[in-house]
Each structure stands twice: as C-alpha cells, then as structure tokens.
C-alpha cells in the first residue's frame, strides 16, 4: 500500500511539473501572439508550436510510464464546498480559483466530457463499428499510404529547392573546359599548330656516323643528332657547317660534337619507356644586339639526351649573326657542360 502511495505521489509530482511547463509555454505563446503579432514570423510561431508539441509528448510519456499507477482508478471527491474565499487555494492555484464552490467544482473535477460531446463520440463509434473490420483496415492502410506519399513529395521538393537554389551558383567552372585549357597550355591541343613552310636542310634519321649538313638558306638549319644504334662502339662525330662568307648575310656556324654513352658522367638506370631529357644548365643573358661586345656570357645550352641505348651529349658552339654596321659583333658562346 505504501509503495503504491509513494508511486502515486511521485507520478503526481512529475505530472504536475510537466503540466506547469506546458502552461508556461502556452502562456508565453499567447503573450507573443497578442503583443507581438505585427512582428511575428511564421518560423517563430512554428517554434512555439513545436515546443508545445514536445511538451505534450513528454506528458504522454509520463502518463504511459510503467511506474505511474492508473489514475483512472483514483477518485477525487470534494469533501467541503463553501462559498467563502480560501486563501490557501488561492495561493496554490496562483490566484485562479479563489473559491471552492458549486460552480467551480463541476468544471474542475470533471471526468466525463460534455453530454453533447459524449453523444457525438457515441455516434462516431457506432459508425466505425458499422463499417466492419476489413473495410476499416483497408481505409487505414490507404490513409497511411497517402500520408507517406505526401511526406515523400514534400521532402523531395524541399531537397530539390535547396540544391536548386545553389545550382546557378554552383556552375562556376566547367571541368571539360579545365581539361581543354590544360591540354592547350601543356601541348597545344586545339591551338593552330604552325610549321614553317618547307623545312630546309635534309634530315637524316638514324645514320651511324656523321651527318653533315650544309649551311644553305638563311636562318633555317637543322642540328643533327645522330644516335648510334649500338652502344659498344663509342662514336665521335663532328659536324662542321660551312659559313656563308658574305658580309651582312646571316648564317651561324654550328659545331656539333656528339659523344656517346660510355663516357657519360651520370650512372643511372636506363629507361625503356621514353627518353629522358635533362637540361643541364641554362643561364645567362642574351643582351641586346647593340651591346654584344659588352659582357656577355651565355653558358651552355647543353642537352643530355638519354634514349634507351645511347647517351649523347651535345655541346654547341655558335657564332651568331653578323649584323651590318657592327663588325665586331661576334658572339662566342662557350660550351660548359656539367
């Protein structure tokens, strides 16, 4: 008995606190509606409703809690009804119920709904019973399905509108364009590839031994880099270009020394996939033609070309352009090879 009493008291306390919370939030909501109705926004109203619904939920949970005794079994009987003011009651009810009298009691201690409401409920229950269990079940199922469909549609709309809002901003770049631009910069894809008309100078691919190229037309010559197919025999070939002796006319003489693999200073694994180019050292300045005689220092443009079989290092000496009016303008570029 005592345990049940204790349980009853505990549950009553919990219920009281929940109800008090609910009352407070309701009160604040009403205040908000009455006083701030011109500034009120829909989200704030929704917040209040959400708060109320949460509190009702907890109230329900408290009531359904296993430790709560069935309040249905408890009966409240008024013992004394008097038309006088009751200060105690006033305090406890925060001034709402001043008198515990005949008018107050039926409202506050009510256990059944109004007669009209009771009638309506009875009507509804008879209607529901009339339909029959199967039909009722079907109706319930269809209602559930419609509700879930509607929920899905709403959530999808919400998701799409969110991303749709972002989509116009999202397209700030186009990956296909990125690839196209990178390809254009890296190896000229999409740009007009220009080749000089009639590449002059015979090209002699793959000849063992020296290739000699005569200096002919102005300006266009090809440097021969003959690679030896067999690396056993080191080859040394020098290619000397003839110089056109006319003053005021171009060309440069290019001396090519081609050395082969075995003397290469770098020991490194040979690659079979693709040849390897290493620019050893390029530095210096080509000054303006008018100040060639000034300090001019171009260290080598030395390429070390490493095909799979043969290493050839090419060092170049170039005597550059003779310009009219500058008889002393001979630019000697000395090779420096690392």
């Amino acid at each position, binding site marked *: 008995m005592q345990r049940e009493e204790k349980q009853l008291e505990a549950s009553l306390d919990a219920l009281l606190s929940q109800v008090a919370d609910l009352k407070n939030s309701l009160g604040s909501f009403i205040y908000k509606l009455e006083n701030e109705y011109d500034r009120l926004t829909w989200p704030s109203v929704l917040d209040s409703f959400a708060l109320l619904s949460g509190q009702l939920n907890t109230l329900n949970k408290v009531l359904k809690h296993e430790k709560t005794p069935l309040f249905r079994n408890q009966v409240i009987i008024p013992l004394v009804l008097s038309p006088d003011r009751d200060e105690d009651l006033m305090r406890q009810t925060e001034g709402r119920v001043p008198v515990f009298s005949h008018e107050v009691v039926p409202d506050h201690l009510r256990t059944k709904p109004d007669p009209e409401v009771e009638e309506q409920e009875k009507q509804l229950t008879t209607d529901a019973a009339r339909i029959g269990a199967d039909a009722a079940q079907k109706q319930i199922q269809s209602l559930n399905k419609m509700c879930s469909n509607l929920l899905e549609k709403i959530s999808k709309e919400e998701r799409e509108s969110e991303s749709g809002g972002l989509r116009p901003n999202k397209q700030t770049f186009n990956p296909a364009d*990125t690839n196209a*631009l990178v390809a254009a910069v890296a190896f000229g894809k999409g740009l*007009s590839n*220009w080749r000089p008309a009639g590449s002059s100078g015979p090209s002699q691919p793959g000849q063992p031994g020296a290739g000699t190229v005569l200096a002919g037309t102005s*300006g266009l010559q090809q440097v021969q880099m003959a690679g030896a197919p067999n690396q056993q025999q080191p080859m040394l070939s020098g290619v000397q270009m003839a110089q056109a002796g006319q003053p005021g006319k171009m060309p440069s003489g290019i001396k090519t020394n081609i050395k082969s693999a075995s003397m290469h200073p*770098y020991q490194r694994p040979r*690659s079979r*996939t693709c040849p390897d180019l290493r620019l050893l050292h390029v530095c*210096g300045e080509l000054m303006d033609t008018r100040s060639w005689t000034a300090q001019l220092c171009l260290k080598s443009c030395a390429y070390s070309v490493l095909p799979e079989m043969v290493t050839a290092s090419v060092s170049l000496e170039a005597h550059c352009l003779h310009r009219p009016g500058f008889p002393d303008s001979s630019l000697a570029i000395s090779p420096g090879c690392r």
Partner: protein
Amino acid sequence: MEAPPVTMMPVTGGTINMMEYLLQGSVLDHSLESLIHRLRGLCDNMEPETFVDHEMVFLLKGQQASPFVLRARRSLDRAGAPWHLRYLGQPEMGDKNRHALVRNCVDIATSENLTDFLMEMGFRMDHEFVARGHLFRKGIMKIVVYKIFRILVPGNTDNTEALSLSYLVELSVVAPAGQDMVSDDMRNFAEQLKPLVHLEKIDPKRLM
C-alpha cells in the same frame, strides 16, 4: 620515365635546380568577377595586375620519341620588357601525398632575338597562343587567371579568337627542389577558393 630525383644531381656550380609546383583549375567567364574579388581579398595587397602575353612553344626533334620543348614568352602590352624563356621538365610522379604537380623548371630572361636564336639552334615552333589575364601574388605563390586565345594567322597577334568560355586558373610556386611543404600551403590556399574554382593537379599526359 622521369629524371632522377633532382636532389641527387651533382651540383657543380651554377643555379640551384628549381622546381615548379603547380595546381590548375578553370572558372567560367561569368564567375570571373567573383573570383577576382576573392583573390584580391586573399592575396597580397597590390594593384591588380593584368597582362597580355604571347607565348610560343618550340620543339627540338631528335632521334628520340619525345622532342625537347622550350617556351618563349613575350609581353604584348609592356614595351621594353625582356622575353622569357622557360624549360619545364616532366612531372615527377609517384608521390600521392604531394598535392601539387611538381616539375623541373628553368627560367631565363632574354633579349628580343630569341626566336631567331632558337631557329638557328634547330628548334621549330610548334604552337603559339596569346594569354590575357590577371596576376596575383601571395608570398611565394603566384596565381594567374588568364584566357587563352588561339592565333588564327601565324605571327599575327591581333587576330585572335578565344579558345573556350573559361579562364584558366593556375597556382604555382617556383622553389628549390625538395621543399614539399610548399604543396601543403598551396593546397590550403586552394581550399579557400572552393567552391568557385577547384584547383587540382592535372596530369597533362592524361589529356593526350
């Protein structure tokens, strides 16, 4: 195959081997303004710098399969500026942790007779384009936003046509070899440009 790790190369004097760390992305024309504003906020405070450059890429074909590539660049809007010659090596592969494309890089300034010189040496021009855009700097990082224009008549830089409706965005650092923390800084900076632009390391060989 790539060059051996640059740190192994004997240094017998001359310049230090410089590596270029690169991240690339693109931005559509209509979003260029917002990108420029963001970059102005993020980068060092300097007058916005625009440039118009004409770049020519020269190839030297040897017996081997892959030719030797040199890039010559000159300014079209700055009179008197020197020409710029650049060599870029193959990207160093292998390190997945490295966030940027790394390749060997050699830069020099030259005088105006560079094209003649290269022709003499046996180079042939492979392609050329005009780049027009903006330049920003943050510390050692250089951010370039430019549009590539195709040159319709060889040699005529006035008659150009845009290659695409996007601007290319490049974040690059030229630093001595071996400084990989640079790529971390670059990645952090690239994060700040998202979602406007996605800067990533794009392997050009994949696009061949």
